[in-house]
């Protein structure tokens, strides 16, 4: 029932978790970069040898405020990067932090993208770009090719375009207001490129309804597709069930957050999500 690239949780497997993995640890901010008017990246000092995979996430806590799940948007020998969009009170507080301040982390949790293959189509919407820029770096490092489609409301919310170009990837852009690239949705670009390219895998992250459209198109053409999901989480490591996809019973935190498209189409992905109380609401 589980996706092949399921997370670390599980009976006695190598790298199985222990209870102390669910503690917080401080991570000092080495650098803050404004990526757009709404989005900042934080470069954090991390433990030696810690390397998240693209698609894995951290539970990030700012003491005095809430804890939120955040995908890694890059990682190196001595840092990880998280990219935070200012969406509510907690993320607004994150945006006030400066170099030398600390965030508190648990993780990395979850499975991450499977990056086997040579030819990828990456489809990003809004701050869904965070795990995809990380994936694009890994793909380039491994000698793979990728086409990167980037959608946003307007030009200033398009993320990581310079970073992509430095990787040798020329992003194709769509904005809802037409201030850059194609005026319209990123799924219009998907319709344009998907039939022409010979893609082995499609990776997507962004608003759920956008991902739903991308997944349907890729599955319809028989192309493997993976989507990285966002859900309300309480624990982040599989106990509380808050982030469940019904009726299959998949937990976004530890069976995901990256799922194969075919599996997602058997769930309420794109239709319904649960709130903090567990009550279901239509998307």
């Amino acid at each position, binding site marked *: 029932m589980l996706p092949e690239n399921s997370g670390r949780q599980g009976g006695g497997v190598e790298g199985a978790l222990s209870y102390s993995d669910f503690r917080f640890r401080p991570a000092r901010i080495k650098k803050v970069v404004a990526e757009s008017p709404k989005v900042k990246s934080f470069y954090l000092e991390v433990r030696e040898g810690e390397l998240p995979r693209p698609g894995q996430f951290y539970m990030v806590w700012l003491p005095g405020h809430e*804890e939120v799940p955040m995908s890694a948007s890059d990682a190196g020998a001595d840092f990880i990067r998280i990219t935070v969009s200012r969406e509510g009170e907690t993320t607004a507080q994150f945006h006030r932090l400066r170099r030398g301040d600390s965030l508190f982390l648990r993780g990395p949790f979850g499975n991450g993208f499977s990056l086997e293959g040579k030819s990828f189509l990456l489809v990003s919407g809004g701050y869904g770009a965070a795990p995809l820029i990380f994936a694009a770096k890994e793909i380039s490092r491994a000698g793979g090719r990728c086409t990167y489609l980037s959608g946003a409301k307007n030009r200033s919310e398009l993320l990581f375009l310079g970073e992509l170009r430095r990787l040798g990837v020329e992003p194709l852009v769509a904005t809802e207001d037409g201030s850059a690239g194609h005026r319209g949705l990123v799924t219009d670009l998907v319709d344009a490129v998907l039939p022409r390219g010979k893609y082995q895998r499609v990776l997507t992250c962004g608003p759920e309804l956008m991902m739903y459209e991308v997944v349907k198109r890729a599955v319809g053409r028989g192309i493997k597709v993976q989507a990285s999901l966002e859900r309300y989480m309480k624990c982040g490591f599989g106990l509380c069930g808050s982030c469940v996809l019904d009726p299959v019973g998949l937990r976004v935190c530890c069976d995901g957050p990256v799922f194969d498209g075919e599996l997602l189409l058997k769930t309420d992905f794109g239709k319904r999500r649960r709130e903090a109380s567990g009550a279901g609401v239509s998307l």
Partner: protein
Amino acid sequence: MKLGIRLGRMRMKNPTMLASGILCNGSLLKRAAVEGGAGAVVTKSLTREVREGYPTPVVVGVDCGVINAVGLANQGFASYLSEDLPLAKEGRVPVIVSVAAGRVEEFEEICVRAEEAGADAVELNLSCPHVEGHGMEVGADPAAVSRIVKDLAGVMKIPVHVKLGLSDRMIESAVAAEAAGAEAVVAINTIRAMAIDVDARRPVLTNVYGGLSGPAIHPIALRCVFELYRELSIPVIGCGGVSDWRTALDFLMAGASAVQVGSALAVRGIGIFREIEEGIRRYLVKNKFSSVKEVIGIAHGVKR
């Protein structure tokens, strides 16, 4: 080798149960049964009103377990019973609905509706350590336990289980529950605790206090089960720090007829129920027992 047991009027294919508050939602309860092999599953505690629970952080790891103060988050009993319970029942093992309430009438309303919706039993959460007026104070008051259980036993057809926490009066409360008509006692709930982050220099949980679960509390829970077995004639269900077949089997030997598993799912995965079942089976075969019932209470030395 038969691992089936009877819990009062309820039959289970093996003595492992998913503890309340873990996985929680219907589709995951089904998965615990079908994929994980649980002999029964318990829902999260349902309340009359929708509860968002506390703001995060609500769960944190410690050396030997987990501390949580989720705050009885749930969508309200009506929504859960209509949307989640049917999915849970697809797992084809007994589904026990956990109920939390502040007043007798609330318990009655939710329990009766759970029975109508197809619950196989109800488990009264009289021991939540992190929500005021919803548990611990009640479970530590034998007269209150007696009132609630007597009221429910009078109107319910399905079994009423009572989940008690660690308190000075736990034994008295359990005895009162049995006398009032409870068909099983679950012991114990999480133990009131807290975590302080030395770098943040503050309590980690938003609610400050939470409940400790996991290996840290197992020896305490084991002692409780051992004592309860001596005082009760209804079945005891052991809960607290079951991590593998040994910590399940020692509960059985102390007198538990079944065990509930919770925190260990975080480190062992959903398959832990089957792991426990297989471990116990191997032990029973190796030691020439003919059924799991023979080890229940065996640590007391005399056959009951």
